[in-house]
């Protein structure tokens, strides 16, 4: 069984290295095909492991080699396949396989084709390390690895200034959060003396609550950065500068869910500190609403989906914070499928529209792009949570959890968000695929994507539709590791009212979106309509002025501070010191050049001078050696 573990873990690495071999050469199909096949192998291995874990309930724990062993510190390269990590492995490998195959088509005309696959496979490897590691140090390596690959992929088109800016923003935001994460890990090591999950969690109940609270908070700060929770959320929307497959894989399905994974993984810790859990849940609910509201008006197709991702991450954190870890993980899985599908569909649309992102400039694409139309509609339905698609099972469950735990405010917020989700999802679908063919005004001739790209997307479509059916099997498996709390509304009447009510609310939102955005007089907004000048719209389209605030009050202040340090400290002190030292040598050289006049007589004089110096030294040291004992007593008398 270890063989499957290693295969699942290392075949993406092999694929990445293989593609990297071609990094500097012109596009060759093989650099995309081989990593895709290797990822398929990785997926199959993960599948075998899943079946094994599901059937036997055994977990696999291997220790590949020692990484660090100094004194009391012992950190191995250990990997664990248990119910939680195998779920993540399946999600990661499945989505990444699909995305790889899709990207062969999507990146067809790109010059950086080979480089793209090297980065993408490297990302998958890092993600696998992250989810499979059996200790916090390994998790952190994977954590940083995905951060690095994310940076490389957001800034993939590095000639675009906005892309490099977005990449740096994502990287820096994540580093800020990683500092918190690192402090959390240090705290764990300091207090428990180990970084292995099992031992650390076993030692935690005996610790002081205050210490545990700090651990939980700092770990969650790390999770906030990676999962783009408020106030570190701005990078996710900007990260849409990267190629669309990247958005689908990293910024929807896998990397951003690492924060949720961390909280789920650290569930023994968060169970001990329910206050922090409540804070996480509240923040999650807030982010869900906050992000959904920004998605309502945004005019960039990918950003809308990114905000939707943010909103769904909020749902996951709400569930995890309330202790319903398995629900959070289940939503994570279901969300990965339909959100990746949505992104890939958006990628098709972008291709068809020659990288046009404004849905107001599209319209009526459903006639030209049947396959994409169906897929995106189904993905949106799943996202909205309509029965019987995946979103219904996972998202409604979160609503129920909030209700049952008597956190009615969270429940209300999440319910409202569900309506908003349905609205903005179908606003997008309606604007892109229905209504008049507005794209004709812009002289674009859309065409459907390659057939194999659609075929590659089909597994995701299938799972987005049927994932709900796995709920009970999944529950049985994963609750061997996670707290097995079944959430049932006590009275059947309440349950049905809630469910049907939610469904009706969502359907109403969808209907409203269709009605509003399929009408014939939708025009490309030009900033003149009444709505666009309203305060609410401006607030939302400017993302609550948060990027503005960051730019003006943090970045600028920091920049000014840096300027001061640069001109005052660096140039005046550090540079001056270094230059001074260099100058001393330079001047000495200038001055002593005369010694090398080549004049034999001068040289003789210098020779005698040197001889005098050496002889004096010989005398001094000779005397010192002879009288070393006396000198020592003299010095010790002086107190040296």
């Amino acid at each position, binding site marked *: 069984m270890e063989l499957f573990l290693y295969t699942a873990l290392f075949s993406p690495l092999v694929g990445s290295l293989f593609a990297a071999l071609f990094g500097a050469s012109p596009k060759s199909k093989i650099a995309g095909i081989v990593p895709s096949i290797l990822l398929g192998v990785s997926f199959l291995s993960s599948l075998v492991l899943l079946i094994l874990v599901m059937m036997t309930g055994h977990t696999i724990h291997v220790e590949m080699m020692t990484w660090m062993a100094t004194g009391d510190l012992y950190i191995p390269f250990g990997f664990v396949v248990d119910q939680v990590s195998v779920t993540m492995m399946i999600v990661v490998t499945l989505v990444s396989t699909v995305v790889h195959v899709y990207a062969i088509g999507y990146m067809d005309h790109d010059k950086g084709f080979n480089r793209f696959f090297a980065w993408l496979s490297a990302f998958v490897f890092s993600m696998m390390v992250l989810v499979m590691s059996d200790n916090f140090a390994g998790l952190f390596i994977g954590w940083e690895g995905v951060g690095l690959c994310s940076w490389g992929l957001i800034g993939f088109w590095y000639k675009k200034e906005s892309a490099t800016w977005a990449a740096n923003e994502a990287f820096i935001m994540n580093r800020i959060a990683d500092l918190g994460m690192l402090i959390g890990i240090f705290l764990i090591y300091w207090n428990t003396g180990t970084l292995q999950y099992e031992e650390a969690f076993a030692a935690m109940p005996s610790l002081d609550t205050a210490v545990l609270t700090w651990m939980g908070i700092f770990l969650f700060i790390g999770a906030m950065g990676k999962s783009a929770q408020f106030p570190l959320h701005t990078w996710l929307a900007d990260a849409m500068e990267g190629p669309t497959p990247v958005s689908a894989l990293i910024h929807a399905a896998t990397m951003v869910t690492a924060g949720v994974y961390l909280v789920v993984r650290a569930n023994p810790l968060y169970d001990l500190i329910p206050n922090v859990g409540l804070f996480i849940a509240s923040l999650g609910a807030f982010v869900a609403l906050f992000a959904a509201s920004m998605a309502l008006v945004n005019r960039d197709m990918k950003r809308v989906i990114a905000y939707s991702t943010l909103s769904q991450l909020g749902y996951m954190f709400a569930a995890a914070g309330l202790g319903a870890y398995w629900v959070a993980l289940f939503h994570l899985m279901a969300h990965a499928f339909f959100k990746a599908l949505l992104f890939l569909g958006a990628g098709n649309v972008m291709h068809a529209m020659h990288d046009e992102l404004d849905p107001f400039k599209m319209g009526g694409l459903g006639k030209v792009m049947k396959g994409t139309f169906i897929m995106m509609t189904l993905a949106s339905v799943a996202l909205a949570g309509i029965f019987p698609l995946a979103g219904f099972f996972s998202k409604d469950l979160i609503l129920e959890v909030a209700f049952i735990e008597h956190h009615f405010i969270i429940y209300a917020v999440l319910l409202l968000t569900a309506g908003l989700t349905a609205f903005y999802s179908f606003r997008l679908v309606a604007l892109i695929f229905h209504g008049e063919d507005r794209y004709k005004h812009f002289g674009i001739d859309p065409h459907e994507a390659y057939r194999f790209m659609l075929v590659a997307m089909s597994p995701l479509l299938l799972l987005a539709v049927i994932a709900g059916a796995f709920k009970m099997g999944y529950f049985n498996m994963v609750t061997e590791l996670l707290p097995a709390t079944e959430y049932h509304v006590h009275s059947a009447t309440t349950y049905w009212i809630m469910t049907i009510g939610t469904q009706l609310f969502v359907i109403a939102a969808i209907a409203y979106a269709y009605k509003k955005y399929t009408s014939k007089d939708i025009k490309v907004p030009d900033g003149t309509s009444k709505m666009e000048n309203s305060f609410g719209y401006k607030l939302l389209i400017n993302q609550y002025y948060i990027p503005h605030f960051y730019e003006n009050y943090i970045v600028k202040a920091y920049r000014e501070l840096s300027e001061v340090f640069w001109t005052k400290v660096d140039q005046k002190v550090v540079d001056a010191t270094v230059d001074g030292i260099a100058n001393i040598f330079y001047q000495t050289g200038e001055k002593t*050049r005369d010694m*090398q*006049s*080549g*004049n*034999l*007589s001068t*040289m*003789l*004089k210098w020779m*005698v001078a040197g001889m005098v110096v050496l002889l004096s030294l010989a005398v001094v040291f000779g005397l010192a050696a002879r009288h070393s004992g006396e000198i020592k007593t003299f010095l010790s008398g002086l107190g040296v």
Partner: protein
Amino acid sequence: MEIGLNHYLVLSTILFAIGLVGVMRRKNLLMLFFATEILLNSVNISFAAISHYYGDLTGQMFAFFVIAIAASEVAVGLGLLIVWHKKHNNIDLDSMSTMRG
């Protein structure tokens, strides 16, 4: 008044200093060779004196070898001097500056 080893050593020091002054001050290459001879001879005196006062022949032996070295130095040095003179038609130390850095 007994003449001891110290007297000879002082004499040797004085001669050595004279030799060094010569080495440093003269610009005539030939004078430089003379000064070198003085240096060697001042050392020879100390050797002979030490040999005498300690009843040991080693000092004298060294003095012999110093004389041999001085002789060969003169032979080679004078040869080089002649070559230089043929080439540049002078033996001024200041003119030897091909090693200028």
